[in-house]
């Protein structure tokens, strides 16, 4: 066992897979010599050399296009888009090229590639470096979308994403980079599309993703300690594929669903889950489905404002408590 930060887990997961498969290559801005602007890829250049770990110019379209072309012709690239907001600069490659080309070619080619990106708030960088955009990715057919909440899941889900035959957008939540976790030695691979029940309870189900998972767990602890309300918390881990079975069975058991989302409200991932639950588990619901999200605005830079925007432990706990009492 060893204690690893979320950021160290990124390099560990990549190194694990690069040792195993020399088709795995890595490219992005400041990722090699500098080890990444979040220091998430330290040591990879030294271990695997400049032919496999490549710094690129600030050219997001060229980065993703190169990853795509390489994936079509025998490599298994990992591309880094430094901040997920920058997906807007290269969305054509994501949404029109990488996501569609397997289908358009009738399955002639596959795109075994991973696009890692630092997602979300927490570093006070303002609206163009802080948004959570996992819902953009979820809206595009042909992509898989993963967002881990713990260092162990970073290793295991990143490994699975790299081995996966399809393009995976892998969102690393910036506010989690410094968090720590115990990780066993040896190879770790976690299957994509399996949600994890991280705390048990019968009164309500809280479904959360990435940085919202520890907040949801803290809110659940507070609700139990202060009000005797016991919530199950589900870490979705992967939006595509989505583990609807776990979510539906938890909701069937508790009769209530709350989602906690860092993405802006409209068409956030929780809306899709709410729709699935409303269609497939309507009879189990004992009260409304409630979404707890960042409001539908760009994120402001000031810490007091940014903190106010994101679902906080207090807001989650209060929303769940009042909703259960009203029902």
């Amino acid at each position: 066992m060893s204690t690893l930060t979320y950021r160290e887990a990124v390099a560990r997961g990549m190194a694990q897979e690069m040792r195993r498969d020399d088709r795995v290559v890595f490219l992005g801005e400041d990722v090699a010599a500098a080890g990444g602007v979040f220091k998430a890829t330290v040591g990879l250049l030294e271990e695997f050399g400049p032919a496999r770990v490549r710094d690129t110019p600030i050219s997001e379209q060229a980065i993703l296009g190169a990853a795509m072309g390489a994936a079509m012709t025998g490599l298994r690239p990992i591309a880094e888009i430094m901040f997920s907001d920058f997906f807007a600069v290269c969305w054509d490659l994501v949404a029109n090229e990488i996501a569609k080309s397997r289908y358009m070619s009738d399955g002639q080619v596959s795109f075994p590639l991973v696009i890692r990106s630092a997602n979300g708030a927490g570093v006070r960088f303002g609206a163009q470096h802080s948004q959570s955009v996992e819902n953009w990715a979820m809206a595009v057919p042909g992509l898989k979308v993963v967002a881990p909440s713990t260092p162990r899941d970073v290793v295991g889900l990143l490994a699975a994403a790299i081995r996966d035959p399809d393009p995976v957008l892998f969102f690393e939540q910036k506010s989690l980079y410094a968090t720590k976790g115990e990780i066993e030695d040896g190879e770790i691979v976690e299957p994509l599309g399996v949600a994890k029940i991280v705390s048990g309870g019968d009164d309500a189900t809280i479904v959360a993703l990435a940085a919202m998972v520890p907040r949801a767990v803290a809110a659940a602890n507070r609700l139990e300690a202060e009000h005797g309300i016991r919530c199950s918390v589900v870490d979705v881990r992967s939006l595509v594929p989505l583990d609807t079975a776990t979510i539906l069975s938890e909701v069937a058991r508790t009769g209530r669903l709350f989602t906690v989302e860092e993405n802006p409200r409209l068409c956030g991932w929780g809306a899709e889950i709410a729709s699935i639950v409303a269609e497939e588990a309507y009879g189990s619901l004992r009260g409304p489905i409630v979404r707890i999200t960042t409001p539908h605005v760009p994120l402001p830079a000031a810490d007091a404002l940014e903190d106010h925007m994101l679902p906080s432990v207090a807001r989650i706990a209060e929303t769940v408590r009042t909703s259960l009492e009203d029902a």
Partner: protein
Amino acid sequence: MTRSLNTPAELYGRMRLIREFEETALRLVKSGDIVGGIHPYIGEEAVAVGVCAALADDDLITSTHRGHGHVLAKGADPARMLAELAGRTTGLNAGRGGSMHAADVGLGILGANAIVGAAAPIAAGAAWASQRARSGRVVVTFFGDGGLNQGVLLETMNLASLWKLPVIFVCENNGYATTMPISTGLAGSAVARAQGFGIPGETVDGMDAVDIRSAAAAAVERARAGAGPSFLECLTYRFGPHHTMEQRIRLSYRPAEEVERWRLRDPLVIQAARITPQEREEADARAAAILAAAREFALASPHPDPADALDYLYASGMRGRGGEG
């Protein structure tokens, strides 16, 4: 179909095949058998054929929205290509791609691409894989003069030059980006842009397949030697519309005398002058026969079954949600 493109007669024959293909496709657009229309390549055949004549079978290409010529020049089966345009199961992509997305990866055709300029970085990525594997394969990316103004192309030229990738940038300058004359859309010059990235560039007569082949051969040699990318600007002209819809909505943006002037430099006529009348007649007859058979094949082929419309999105076999009902 032979992929050999060596002799003057073979060059002519392949251009004739592309011309015949496009004329057949235009009739099928008119009859309603091809839905969605096409971007005809008529007038530009020398570019695709001249460039592909310089490539080996396992070299790779990416293509454009006006891609039928590139795909056929690289060796795709015209019958399966026509079936693709007509949306049939026997099409190159079984009808999932259509006119602007034909791909035949086994033949090195990584795909036509309907986003202007967007295939360039994909070609660079394939060239990176080739460089890493030391396979010697080169990758050609075709684009139009309109593509010169896409940032993605400039990003790609920079990266390809930095990494010395075996990629060849082929600009088909047909004078118009959809309806915009190049004089209103391009500052500076195409070749100077490439040179700005340290990529050697050359402007060639895009109506002369032999000239194009020589220039492309030099670029291929340079790429195989590890010396990096090259840029070719081929001055050409499309004799027809940007897209077949253009005729229906009666877009007008080119003087008739300009079109007529370019028609005098028909690339097929230029190449025909290098072969015997008998070779020409044989090639014409062969192309006509191939396309007659292709038409019959395409129109007799089944339409896709909606039951499998969700297949092939994910290699893992996962299906997109919502297709259950």
